[in-house]
């Protein structure tokens, strides 16, 4: 195999005022033609800086290459002028970024963005470029490409846009594709589709891919070769098998270990403290009206559709499902941040829907929320003690001294230094800020915590520490959680029971281990199979769920899932299956639950 890109002793510095802070040190990396190399590491490890240096985009972002060579087809591009780089970028080396929603200019149509790039690098007419673009969209399996060309980016879903972004990168048949976390912002099912697409394109076009990810499992799915970055250096590199089966460096070991820990331990093995039911929902529904034109029937989004569930004291109920499945809305209904349109929410057996202001306040005291974005959840102009102490000022009549005492106590409980109470949110890391959020949520000794993607924005290592903390608090305080995350492994790790949501309905609910080992709903099975794993034996055998989650404005009749289900029959198209208890605590809403082996085979 010919070597396409050779990075030799690359060092990159970021300019901060007059200083140059080293961000990447002595990186050596080879990419052969047709090879997929994964750069793995936590945030701030220098992965993205390295990739920007290869494209020489780092020059525009306050950085500069301080040493080393970047040999692309035996030419050192580290010293080329930007003018010359413009002939290489997009033509020979192309890039796909993380968030497809922001990667395209929102004010131009998809078609215009293709035409601009194609005509920059090839001398073709506008209509030739337009037709070429349609071909590219076909290549990435976008349905009705001709009409997509005339649409604006915000009219497409995230998964579709990432396909568009990939097609745009392929416009000039580049030899190297740099993909920076291209699937991180997507659902697991869509992630699996995009990973398959990249593998397929590699096979067809023979291009090399430098794939950057923080997720070891994604790397295991796609990589030929893996390089692990930590604090600006590559600490270890080798074939995927070498890295995942026999990690050498301590950092790699800890990464692999924490991923394995997630898979082996599960909260459902541990004893629950109590059988007392804290929170219960009975057939709750929520619809949101859409803006509509006059003289046309009003349209509604059915966000939550007749959901019933219960949460015991000291129990964690996990919720999984693609975005748009209604998880977040369900969570908000449970803690009365939004009113349900119908159905009941029972807190300790008492109906709390439509209560008075005072009842609501009492309920808020006992049901608290932690969200995903650690920064925007904290007032940047308040000190930590003011933030954490605020619930006490609202709900109790404690004196200043008593509040300070409680704040210090609770800071200790979340493993933060009590002295840090006088600092401001921006002085903390993401993981620490989430601890502050948790501290504020538990200071009133609530019984129930809604954790809406509470660990999703954190690095793997930090994430597992926050999970540990949540488990510890649950043990000590008997807290009940509803936990939502798009990473299935985390949900499995922390949850006693897991509910799977699809288009506003819960389609399956079961103890965590049982759900993962013996899924009963075809959708659950598809989700699990889409979930990337570092277990190399299972690599690339998965069944990929076709298409995307349908619009909740016009959900399919009968079983919502029938449009994507390989087992669907006439009955599924006509009749919505009711939730039925299988055994113990397992319930599923499916006409053909997957218990028999042949159904499993059929699915394959």
């Amino acid at each position: 195999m010919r070597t396409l890109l050779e990075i030799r002793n690359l060092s990159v510095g970021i300019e901060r005022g007059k200083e140059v802070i080293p961000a990447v040190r002595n990186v050596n990396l080879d990419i052969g033609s047709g090879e997929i190399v994964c750069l793995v590491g936590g945030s701030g490890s220098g992965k993205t800086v390295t990739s920007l240096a290869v494209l020489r985009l780092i020059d525009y972002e306050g950085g500069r290459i301080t040493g080393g060579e970047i040999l692309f087809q035996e030419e050192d591009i580290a010293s080329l002028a930007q003018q010359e780089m413009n002939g290489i970028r997009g033509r020979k080396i192309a890039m796909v970024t993380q968030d497809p929603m922001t990667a395209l200019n929102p004010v131009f149509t998809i078609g215009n963005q293709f035409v601009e790039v194609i005509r920059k690098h090839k001398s073709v007419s506008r209509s030739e470029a337009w037709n070429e673009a349609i071909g590219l969209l076909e290549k990435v399996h976008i349905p009705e490409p001709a009409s997509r060309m005339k649409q604006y980016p915000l009219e497409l879903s995230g998964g579709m846009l990432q396909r568009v972004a990939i097609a745009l990168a392929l416009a000039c048949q580049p030899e190297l594709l740099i993909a920076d976390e291209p699937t991180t912002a997507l659902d697991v099912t869509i992630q699996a589709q995009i990973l398959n697409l990249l593998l397929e394109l590699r096979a067809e076009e023979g291009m090399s891919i430098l794939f950057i990810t923080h997720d070891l499992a994604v790397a295991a799915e796609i990589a030929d070769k893996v390089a692990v970055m930590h604090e600006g250096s590559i600490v270890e590199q080798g074939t995927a098998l070498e890295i995942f089966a026999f990690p050498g460096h301590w950092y790699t070991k800890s990464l692999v270990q924490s991923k394995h820990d997630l898979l082996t331990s599960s909260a459902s093995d541990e004893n629950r403290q109590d059988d007392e039911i804290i929170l219960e929902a009975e057939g709750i529904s929520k619809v949101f009206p859409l803006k509509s034109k006059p003289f046309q029937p009003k349209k509604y989004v059915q966000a939550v559709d007749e959901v019933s569930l219960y949460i015991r004291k000291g129990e964690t109920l996990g919720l999984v499902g693609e975005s748009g499945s209604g998880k977040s809305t369900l969570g908000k209904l449970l803690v009365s941040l939004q009113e349900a349109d119908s159905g009941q929410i029972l807190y300790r057996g008492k109906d709390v829907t439509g209560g008075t202001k005072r009842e609501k306040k009492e309920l808020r005291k006992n049901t608290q929320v932690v969200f995903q974005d650690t920064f925007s959840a904290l007032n940047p102009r308040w000190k930590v003690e003011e933030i954490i102490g605020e619930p006490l000022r609202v709900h109790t009549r404690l004196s200043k001294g008593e509040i300070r005492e409680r704040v210090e106590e609770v800071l200790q409980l979340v493993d933060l230094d009590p002295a840090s109470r006088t600092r401001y949110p921006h002085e903390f890391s993401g993981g620490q800020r989430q601890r502050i959020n948790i501290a504020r949520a538990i200071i009133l000794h609530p019984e129930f915590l809604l954790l809406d993607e509470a660990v999703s924005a954190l690095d793997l290592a930090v994430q597992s520490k926050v999970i540990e903390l949540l488990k510890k608090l649950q043990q000590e305080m008997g807290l009940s959680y509803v936990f939502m995350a798009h990473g299935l492994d985390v949900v499995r790790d922390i949850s006693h029971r897991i509910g799977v949501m699809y288009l506003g309905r819960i389609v399956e609910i079961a103890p965590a281990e049982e759900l993962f080992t013996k899924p009963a709903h075809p959708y659950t099975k598809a989700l699990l199979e889409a979930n990337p794993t570092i277990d190399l034996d299972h690599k690339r055998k998965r069944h990929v769920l076709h298409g995307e989650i349908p619009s909740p404005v016009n959900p399919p009749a009968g079983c919502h899932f029938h449009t994507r289900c390989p087992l669907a029959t006439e009955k599924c198209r006509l009749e919505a299956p009711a939730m039925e208890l299988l055994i113990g605590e397992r319930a599923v809403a499916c006409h053909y639950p997957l218990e028999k082996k042949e159904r499993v085979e059929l699915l394959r």
Partner: protein
Amino acid sequence: MLYVLSRFGMAAGVILGSVTLVFIIVNILPGDVATLLAGDDVPTETVNQLREELGLDRPLISQYLDYIAGLFQGDLGTSYANSEPVLDRLLDNLGPTLALTISSMIVAIVLGLILGILSAVYQNKLLDGIIRVLSLIGVSTPNFWIGILLIWIFSVQLHLLPSIGNGSFEQLILPSIGLGITGAGVITRLIRNSILEASNEPFIRSLRGKGIGQRAILFKHILRHALIPAVTMVGMIFGEMLAGSVVTETVFSRQGLGRLIVDAIDQKDIPIIQGAILFTAAFYVVINMLVDISYRYIDPRIRLNEK
């Protein structure tokens, strides 16, 4: 289409509201019109007679309703001062004011765009510093003072341009600069900031990654984003220019709506005041309506979000 219609409805509401407000204000101000018009040393009967002739003895509400009814027929009343129809006097003065505001607007937009772009491109360099100081001066200096300064430099010292009057193009230059310079400062600062902000959008990185050159990125992609807040600002600056024209027209001894209002207030010529305010409000509303409608063509997101 529905959007445009609803904008028209709102515009009509704003105009009616401002007419009503002005009607109330001029009528509760101290000073009796009839006494003022009749002059000193006139017997009370004459004043009363005059009051009756002008219809000022009727209750305010019926005066108001008559006035509104007149508006719908294109009748803005007659001037108290010289009995000319108000509409004619307004139309006579409209042309010079329009010429002044439009040319000031051109000064503001052209200067603002050029300086704003230069300032952003040379961010934190010497040129940027100079432009930022200049735009700050422009924003914070009252335009009558700039006007006086311009007259002193270009007319008194250099004898380059005429300082007063209207009619020729040369006579328009100094007033337009004087009135436009505040707007230019505001636009410069806004364009600079929004260019710098748009440069940090992730899609700009993607575009560079596709080999698109700096210049194309700036003029095609960044500028289009930067224009959205600037267009809003243009609508607001227009309002300030109308207000500023009152002073500028006085400083440069120009004919125009601004001067007309000032004179009318001196004479308590209520129909003229009301008519001039009506014109100004209508102007302002129409410009801002155009601004609102133009967004939808600059930024398709606004159009699509309504679907």
